[in-house]
């Protein structure tokens, strides 16, 4: 299989880790809302970041259906229109699967430049849906959300790839 020059060989990902990371992202999103900032339009959507990450790195394991289900849960937690996040995550994962073959050939800056339009499109879709549903504009701080999500992309890339970067057969002289 052709791989980008200089890319390290990764261990296979464990399905349990994917699900655990998605559940942790959901809990983190809840914590942002319930403990830290309450109702704020600029909050980055960590569930969307983790979903896009897995859709790009493991498109055979995390697909459009996963996004739909998680979107429903996020809708119920946020007390939003039922189906709003389901639709935006569905579209987001479709777009992510569309760019998954080329994205990992780019440097981190190049990757960020390419995921920014994805997140911006997801937020634009959400605003469009709510305007159709009869709600108003939530405030200009919402424009910060896709930028923050893009800034968090390298952080999540390092964190979520960390288990796959371990040595295949660690021993006492080579713990990593």
């Amino acid at each position, binding site marked *: *299989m052709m*791989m980008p020059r200089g890319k390290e*060989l*990764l*261990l*296979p*990902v464990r399905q349990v880790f994917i699900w655990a990371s998605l*559940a942790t992202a*959901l*809990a983190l*999103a*809840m*914590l*942002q*809302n*319930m*403990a830290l900032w*309450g*109702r*704020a*339009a600029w*909050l980055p959507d960590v569930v969307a970041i983790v979903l896009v990450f897995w859709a790009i790195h493991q498109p*055979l394991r995390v*697909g*459009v*259906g996963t*996004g*739909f289900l998680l*979107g*429903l*849960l996020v809708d*119920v*937690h*946020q*007390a*939003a*229109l*039922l*189906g*709003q996040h*389901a*639709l935006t995550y*569905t*579209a987001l994962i*479709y777009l992510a*699967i*569309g760019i998954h073959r080329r994205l990992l050939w780019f440097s981190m800056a190049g990757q960020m430049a390419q995921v920014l339009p994805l997140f911006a499109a997801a937020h634009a879709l959400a605003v469009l*849906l*709510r305007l159709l*549903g*009869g*709600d*108003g504009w*939530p*405030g200009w701080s*919402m424009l910060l959300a896709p930028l923050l999500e893009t800034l968090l992309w390298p952080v999540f890339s390092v964190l979520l790839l960390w288990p*796959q970067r371990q040595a*295949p057969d660690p021993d006492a002289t080579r713990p990593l």
Partner: protein
Amino acid sequence: MPLGTLDSSPPPFFRQGPSALSKLFFFGLLAVLLMVADLRFHVAQPLRATLATVLYPLQWVVLRPVVWLGDGGRYFQSLQASQESAAAAQYQLGLQSQRAQQVEQLTLENARLRQLLELRARVNAPALAAQVLYDAADPFRQKVILDKGSLSAVQAGSPVLDEYGVLGQVTQVYPLASEVTLLTDSHQTIPVLNPRSGVRALAVGVTQGMALQFQDAHVDMQVGDLLTTSGIDGIYPPGMLVGRISQIDRHTSDVFARIRVTPVAHTHSALHVLVLKPSADALVANAVAPAPPASGPRRAKP
């Protein structure tokens, strides 16, 4: 290195499942159907309640550190601060007890007068105390989540008060929690009465407050007037404080005056709230029941 150690395995040739585009159409359509069912036909409630119950354990776990931090903060509060707050509460209680005695007397007097006039008795709605858990995250709406749900007999449509006045209305009930739409939400309307002039109006939520709609440019309203619930809607009991008029713009070019109202309830920081039963049920029961016999001698009709 054994086989299967590396992640980069070739994708399967044949069993790929439906394409991403067809999945997008399928799930997209499903989501749109759900939104229509939720927004137009209001039939998505069972699905919402089920998902909320599934989510509840995770929410409970995430809320624990928040609760512990709050409790810990209160535990380590200095003795002086807690004594001061207790003294302030005592002072408040003293002020209110005087008023409460007046209210007792007035209620008695009112009941007697109503009996004399053969009016229906005033309805007192049964109440349930609840706590605000957190603000709902949806930035498009103004909602908070309460810790009581249908298992505690909370009904959708119930008015919610905090210690200062009307806070909002329960709009969605789950088994263990419920959603309250605040008065400042743009979809929320409350009928109000200006007790000074007797003018009735509708207050709708606008950003950071409320506005009185369709009021004549010469209407008798002044900045600083307190507004109460009018009680003609069958939901809010009459006489509850709603807000204070903060700004009035009367333009000669406009038919209506632009009146802004600040809610008296603390919409951003309410913690302990009271959930009333919608007064329509009690009103109907009251209207169907026979009127109480007037006490005292009645004059014979001429």
